[in-house]
């Protein structure tokens, strides 16, 4: 019977090893290891053996044969699975570099990009963002800011007027300062706001000037605010926006709505200067006009152009490019 086992084992091993697919392997396994398979059927004949020793020896031999065939089948199964996977992988090959295409993301306007970066810096310094109308009354744009009608300092701005109400009573705001006046007339101090926005001048467009451009102005009104707080805030902004290597300087200047007034310059790490904007202590007349007692409260204000920041930052040589709405320009940033 041992011989019989050996020969069946050999046949089974051959059949398993010769299987070329999972299906033929399954059939070979069923033929030999299945309930009615050749090896299983030998088990039923063990009882007919004469001695216990013989039963033990033959049984052992038969179990070994079954285990060998099962192991070979498993081995063959793994090999066949690997082949199949390899075939599948080859057939599914993709060259992903074929699928690169132009990204379809949109591009924010340069002014918006600079505007939001500036807002973020001032929010970090504890400021809120104030907004107001672009068409303004003469009162908010000039009179509340210490420029009564026919005040000579009004000629510092080339004003565009709007046909509305009495002639000369309605203007396109020449600066975002009227937003400050609106905040002061509607909110109780302490006030810490910046007002970014669109402003208008009766000026012909050239490489460095636009009749419509954008400013950001800051206003602080609180008890005991001093010129040192103004200088320190400008310095803190300089570090936060431009970087630690930059410093700021204030130079005396004149604006009707601030006194003392100053220009502020930024010193670049290479020692050169960038003239950035104007600032000063809020004039007592402005506080009073807006219903704030200048004896109890004091404040400072500052302002500068957003467009110029974007122009400097991105190396744009002509401001008009930023307003061409040419997609070739927009998509560069």
């Amino acid at each position: 019977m041992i011989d019989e086992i050996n020969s069946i084992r050999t046949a089974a091993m051959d059949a398993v090893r010769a299987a070329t697919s999972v299906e033929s392997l399954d059939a070979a396994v069923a033929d030999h290891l299945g309930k009615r398979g050749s090896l299983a059927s030998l088990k039923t004949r063990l009882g007919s053996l004469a001695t216990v020793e013989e039963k033990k020896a033959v049984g052992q031999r038969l179990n070994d044969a079954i285990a060998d065939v099962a192991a070979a089948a498993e081995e063959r199964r793994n090999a066949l699975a690997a082949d199949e996977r390899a075939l599948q992988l080859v057939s599914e090959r993709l060259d992903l570099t074929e699928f690169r295409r132009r990204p379809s993301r949109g591009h924010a306007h340069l002014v918006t990009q600079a505007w939001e970066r500036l807002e973020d810096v001032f929010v970090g310094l504890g400021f809120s963002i104030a907004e107001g109308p672009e068409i303004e009354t003469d009162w908010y744009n000039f009179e509340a800011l210490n420029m009564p009608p026919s005040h000579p300092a009004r000629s510092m701005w080339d004003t565009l007027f709007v046909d509305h109400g009495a002639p000369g009573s309605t203007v396109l705001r020449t600066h975002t300062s009227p937003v400050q006046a609106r905040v002061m007339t509607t909110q109780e101090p302490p006030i810490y706001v910046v007002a970014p926005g669109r402003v208008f001048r009766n000026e012909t467009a050239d490489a460095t000037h636009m009749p419509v451009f954008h400013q950001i102005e800051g206003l602080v009104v609180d008890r005991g605010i001093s010129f040192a707080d103004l200088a320190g805030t400008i310095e803190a902004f300089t570090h936060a926006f431009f970087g630690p290597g930059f410093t700021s300087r204030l130079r005396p200047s004149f604006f009707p709505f601030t006194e003392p007034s100053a220009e502020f310059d930024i010193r670049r790490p290479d020692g050169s200067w960038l003239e950035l904007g104007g600032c000063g202590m809020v004039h007592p007349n402005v506080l009073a006009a807006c219903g704030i007692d200048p004896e109890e409260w004091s404040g400072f204000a500052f302002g500068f152009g957003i467009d110029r920041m974007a122009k400097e930052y991105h190396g744009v040589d002509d401001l008009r490019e930023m307003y061409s709405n040419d997609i070739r320009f927009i998509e560069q940033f």
Partner: protein
Amino acid sequence: MKIILSWLNEFAPFGPATDDNIERLAASLNSLGLAVEDITRTGAPIPGVVTARVLRTERHPDAAKVHRVYVDAGDGAERHVWCGAFNMSAGDVVPLATLGTVMPDGRDIQKRKILGIASDGMLCSGTELGIDDDADGILLLPSDTPLGRPIMEVLGVEADAVFELDLTRNRPDCWGHLGVARDLAAWLGLSLTMPRAELGKLGETRRAPVTIVDGDRCGRFTSTVMSGIRVAESPAWIKGRLALAGMRPINNVVDASNLVMLELNQPNHAYDLDALGGGAFRIRRAADGESLVTLDSIERHLTRRDLLICDGADAPIGLAGIMGGLNSEISGSTTTIALEVAWFEAEGIGQSVPHLNLRSEASARFERGVDPYGVDRSIARFAELLRESCPSLVVHAGTQDARSESLPPDQRSTRVRIGRVNALLAVTLTEHDIARLLEPIGFGCSSPAPGIVEVSLPSWRPDCTSEIDVIEEVARHHGYDNIPKSVRKSPRGGGLTPAQKRRRRVRDVLLGLGVSEAMPDVFLSPGDMERAGHRGGVVTVTNPLVAEQSVLRGSLIPGLLKSIAYNESHRATGVALFEVGHRYLPGDGVLPFEAEQLCVVLAGREAPGAVEVWEELRAALGWTGTALAAPDSTIPGLHPTRQAVVMLGAGRSGRTVVGSVGEVDPSVLGGFGVTERVAVLDVDLGALLAIDPPVPQFSVFSRYPSSDIDLAFVVADSVAAATIQSAIERSGGALLVHTELFDTYRGVGVPEGSRSLAYRLRLQSSERTLTDTDVAEVRQRCIDAVAKAGGTLR
């Protein structure tokens, strides 16, 4: 304003025109708020340019435009130069730039050969030396000039610097050298010396009487008679000074007048007394329609806004504070003058100037503010300067000094609290410190009570009237750089408002969808709004730059269409742009109507493209209270059969239209030169950003299976799909958890003018598994509701 260093040096020892000193002074001027825009250096020595005598000149047969000049530069050696100017002859002394000289324009003088013959240098013109405008010939010097000497030393030209100052409106005093010198001397701790100004021994009394008729415009008018004048050229130093200051020398009388103006900031005018009708002055407003030919030979048409200086016979001879009349000009034969030194009210001049479109050195000063009490010094300084070229000058007694009510008081003062100074500037100055800073610039300090300084205000600083003005002066002279820096933080903390955050989110969503941001002009041409379909009025600009920019946009669409057309013309089709910006329409309020709008335009896309953008925004921003609906009436400017409105709110009364979506009307596209279709979304961003979406709350999802049913309806084109969907959603009841339009079909089997709309309904209960009866009930309810809304089950 041009400020000359050598002139400043007459007031205080500011130092030489060396690079270091010029830089130091410029930094000081900047620190004082007298912004230095530009610095021009003049008369600096040019090493290598020396005096040389012309020994002989010689033509070369092959050279027509140049000749050979042999010179002696004092060292006995004969040098040869080629020269293109022929104005010298043997014996003349000329400037020779020797080999290796670097000329002021940067030219390096090297040995150059012409026709094979080398040149040992170059002879120089006045222009090449930077001393005058004569470029035609070589500068010729007197024949007894020593040879081999540095040219600038021989000419007596000294190095100088001109500071171009950009002055602010509050510093009228710095329109004269005196004002700048006073500020700068105080800053540098130097004492100020006034230049000599003597009237001399007064002659017999002679008067040119003055009558101020309109005293509100003229506060002071003095006339002084001076005789013994011989009109001639001014001395070289006066001419040189005027040239550096950018003024043309005319004659000794006019030059003295101008010099006084540039030095003391006091415009003045000399009249030929013999030509002055009636020998007197009357200052009055012009009559409407009156005219005068000014010194520049232009006839000026006047109104009551303008102020005239008239002679004794009331004939106009000058525009007060602006420009003299041509008829009163000093002539070569003038021997006696009446000198006007006056003070005119600033605002009046400021209104007259733009009206006449006539600006002058005088008007620029008067409209900013001239010292009303600097008059006497100016008269004396004029006499002092004129006497240099007219030793026989006699200033007559009898100066007329007419004054009126508009003359500012000579004593002005304000009370300054020391505590206020220190609190505002974050410094610790004493009363003594404040006096130390203010007195050198002409402010007087006394202390009527502890902690108080009574400050007298100088007459040349009309801008200074109150405590805060004085605090600024203290800050300036203490030095802005010496004030410490501190930071105050808001007690409330900063941040964007919810609406501002949502505006950023809108931008981010659009950028993510591939739409870029544009900023078209807010100004439109007349007719642009109408071409875009707008009915009704627009807001116009009173004083536009050009007519094409005279209308303020009532919609963002025209500007964006222009941007699409621009890009199409540059071969960029299919651009997707959005803008967030204000639009303006006429209104009845204090201000015109103004609102923030969002407009998206998708070139080359049909209307559904804009709906997709809207749905993305709606989902991202949580605008669940909005819905698209068919418009009640056709929206002009949009494709009439491809448009919908964006509704906000619920219920018939609570619903408002906040925008529209669709395609731009093809006829509008044509009007703007756009060739592609354009899908458009145009919404009132202000209204949408005001929506505060509720915070989503967690709801437990059902553990029971859901059932889907599909329903297709035939619906007339006149009925909106949104109407059908809301009929389903309203009638489905609690078991209907989701409805989706999954197919739209037109064609065979569906009548003309209708389409089939197929919806998938998902039903689910949170309490039990649905029965067939449950599903059938919901199905029937929906079919009935849709039937009422105008849809028939297919």
